[in-house]
């Protein structure tokens, strides 16, 4: 590195320090030694939380989301009716004390079905999303940051993209449905299968997006600066690159939950998802589509829950993103 280059790098490092410096409420300059500062994450995370709390939409969404989680997890302990219990005399009943959200065409309690369905749908949505986004971000970061890894990883991504979701899922379902349902029971077997399949087949978009962003980011001055002071790659990625590609990852995560919930119901639509007596929000919605005109509440309720969950995750994601952006923080 020539002297001139070094000077440039120092200049840009200064610039970064200057611009990032005034932003935090604390008004402190970033610590000189990031390793030692690692012990002081307390203040940083408190900042994030403080900022997050000031984001009204995110707070409302978080409370609502926790509410939905409680509804599907604790709900069945309070409302103990079995979601698959057929009470034929009570079929098609409206909202009543015995069935607060009515019953379906076979007299199964809608409230219980929504709770049971939500547990599956949220579990499928979150698990599949976490798998997909983690995998995708990892591949994207590595491919974007290390030039040598770019070609092989991107060809791998292309390969996975080329195996369209549905045939691959079909293949996995036909391959593993019987053996998994034998070793884990029909429901758990299908859960593992669906979550694994959706997760393993939907990471590519996140990977491509993260890589694209990293490619641009890598040439920015602050990265050059950080590099020039000898930051090791792992810390570079975690501390400098990752935070700057967080927002597309957040979007991918939000959308990923919705996609996973709907993909699951689409699989049922094709007779490939959970067994027909196993309620999920997507399935409840699908089953009620025929009766939409007669009993609108049967489509509105599961639809509402799916949308609400996705909206909540989206706002929480927005809030987190804002809270973690040092430029906005403290504004």
């Amino acid at each position: 590195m020539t002297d001139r280059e070094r000077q440039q790098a120092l200049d840009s490092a200064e610039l970064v320090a200057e611009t990032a410096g005034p932003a935090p409420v604390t008004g402190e300059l970033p610590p000189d030694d990031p390793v030692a500062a690692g012990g002081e994450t307390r203040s940083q995370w408190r900042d994030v939380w403080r900022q997050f709390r000031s984001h009204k939409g995110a707070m409302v969404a978080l409370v609502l989301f926790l509410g939905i989680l409680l509804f599907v997890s604790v709900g069945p302990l309070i409302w103990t009716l079995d979601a698959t219990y057929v009470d034929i005399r009570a079929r098609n009943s409206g909202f009543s004390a015995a069935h607060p959200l009515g019953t379906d065409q076979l007299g199964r309690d809608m409230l219980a079905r929504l709770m049971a369905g939500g547990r599956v749908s949220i579990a499928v949505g979150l698990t599949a999303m976490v798998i997909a986004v983690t995998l995708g971000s990892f591949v994207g970061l590595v491919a974007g940051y290390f030039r040598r890894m770019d070609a092989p990883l991107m060809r791998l991504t292309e390969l996975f993209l080329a195996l369209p979701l549905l045939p691959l899922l079909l293949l996995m379902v036909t391959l593993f449905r019987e053996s998994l349902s034998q070793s884990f029971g029909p429901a758990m077997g299908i859960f593992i299968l669906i979550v694994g399949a959706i997760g393993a087949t939907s990471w590519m978009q996140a990977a491509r997006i993260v890589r694209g962003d990293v490619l641009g980011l890598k040439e920015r001055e602050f990265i050059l600066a950080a590099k020039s002071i000898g930051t090791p790659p792992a810390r570079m990625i975690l501390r400098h690159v990752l935070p700057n590609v967080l927002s597309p990852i957040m979007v991918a995560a939000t959308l990923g939950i919705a996609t996973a919930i709907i993909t699951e119901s689409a699989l049922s639509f094709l007779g490939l998802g959970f067994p027909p007596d196993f309620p999920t929000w997507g399935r409840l919605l699908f089953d009620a589509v025929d009766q939409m005109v007669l009993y609108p509440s049967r489509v509105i309720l599961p639809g509402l829950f799916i949308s609400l969950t996705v909206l909540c995750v989206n706002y929480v994601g927005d809030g987190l993103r804002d809270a973690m952006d040092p430029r906005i923080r403290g504004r």
Partner: protein
Amino acid sequence: MKLRTLLMGAAASLVLAPAAMAERGADGAVSIIMWQAPSTMNMYLSSGTKDIIAASMVLEPLASFTPEGTLTPRLATEIPSLENGGIAEDLTSVTWKLKEGIKWSDGTDLTADDVVFTANYCMDPKGGCAQLAKFEGISAVEAVDPLTVKITFTEPRPDPFSAFVGGQAPILQKAQFESCLGEAAPTCTEQNFNPIGTGPFKVVEFRTNDVITFEANQEYRDPAKPAFATLTMKGGGDAAAAARAVLETGEFDYAWNTQLAPEVLAGMEANGKGRVEAAFGSLVERIHVNLTDPSPSLPEGERSTTKHPHPFLTDLAVRKALSMAIDRNLLTEIGYGPAGQPTCNLVPAPAAWASDNTECLTQDIEGAKALLEEAGWVAGPDGVRTKDGMRLSLLYQTSVNAVRQDFQALIKQWWSEIGVETELKTIDASVFFGSDAGSPDTLQKFYADVEMYANNFEGNNPEPYLAKQTCDKAPGPENQWQGENTSRYCDPEYDKLVVELGKTVDLAARGELGKRMNDMQTKDSHSVIPLVYRGTASAVSNTLGGVMLNAWDTEIWNVADWHRIKE
């Protein structure tokens, strides 16, 4: 309300019929929506109703069945009988006279040679003909003269009306199919997609699994028919969408097989654009019990074959208990409404053949429990009965269909009450009923313990239908999985009765034999658990006249008479 609409429709059609039928093609276009798209026009290569319906507008048999279940001549001048000498005194042959002047849609004459050729085409041992049962027991088909065909049987046949009768066994044109005999049959793409026929319509364009365009056959024998110049048959979607396209949006004139919950259909009919018509033939929704082992641990090609008996469904007590636990009245009410009746029979009609077997109509959960208890099936800690280490755990498959999934849920619950655990599985209808035996999920493959679907027989003679349940008709690799004995039911006694039925002439005695065979499969062996006697329900636009839903032949058997009711 519905009756009135019907009567008005009938009255209107009577008044307008002469005007409407005055000229061929005067009423423009008519459209049919089939939510299962036809994949071929050659029903000799497919056992699917969807394909037979599509082909029946082009290819015609010698005689058809009326909606009442009686015979009516089509390409023949009259129905052969002992009186007119068409049926030989010794019952070993039947002679058909073809109508004079019938032309194929390419302008050539229909001759007895075409009929003979069709028989050879289907009876070719290498052709894999799906309708071979119709030609069973035929020793020779000969052309006596260009308009006379003589079918000789190996044994006396009291009911000779199977080959060339009904929409499943029509006449193919010899000139067109000559190069498609035997092994070449499935490779004749052009012929199988665009067969030349004598029917009211001819194929203009065939798009496999999508849409078929027909136009009026200018060579059709009745110069005034068909009233429609073009006919479009669209495939795809689902039953609800098909019903909606006729009853709510009015885009289509006719929707085939709109099997939906009665309340949903009633809601759609309220729009006043059309009505759902039901005709009762012999369609029975039933559960088939797999008497062979569908275990995935068996090698491919041996699963669900007679080589391996089922571990516990071979126990009569289990099968009987499964049947007793079902409330058929409730199933009918929820699933079919006016288009269904609870039944215990495999052969619900005609009256002479219908057994008075009604004991299953009352649900008996306690009785079923006692029966299992007696047979040594003891409830385990989880409520599921076991015996000798075997659990009463079933895989119950059917097609994706709202009514069937409701049935699955209900039946699963009843079975759980008697200590039988049920795992449900659904398969896309086009696969489940698909004629492609390559798929592991077809009803013939039967890789499950029990499966539910509906089946019927064509014509008023259940004999061939009963004869399909013999030991050698069990689906398997050796018959390319085309056999109709899905339960793999095998009783030498039953096979003997089939032979006896084939020799019996007296109608009353035949009915009695039929009842016995029906009872053997249902209340005696419970290898088949009948649920509901179903009407064929199809949605018809109020502007479409002349529709006479026929459950004994293809349901659009009289498509030549269809016409537009003018406002």
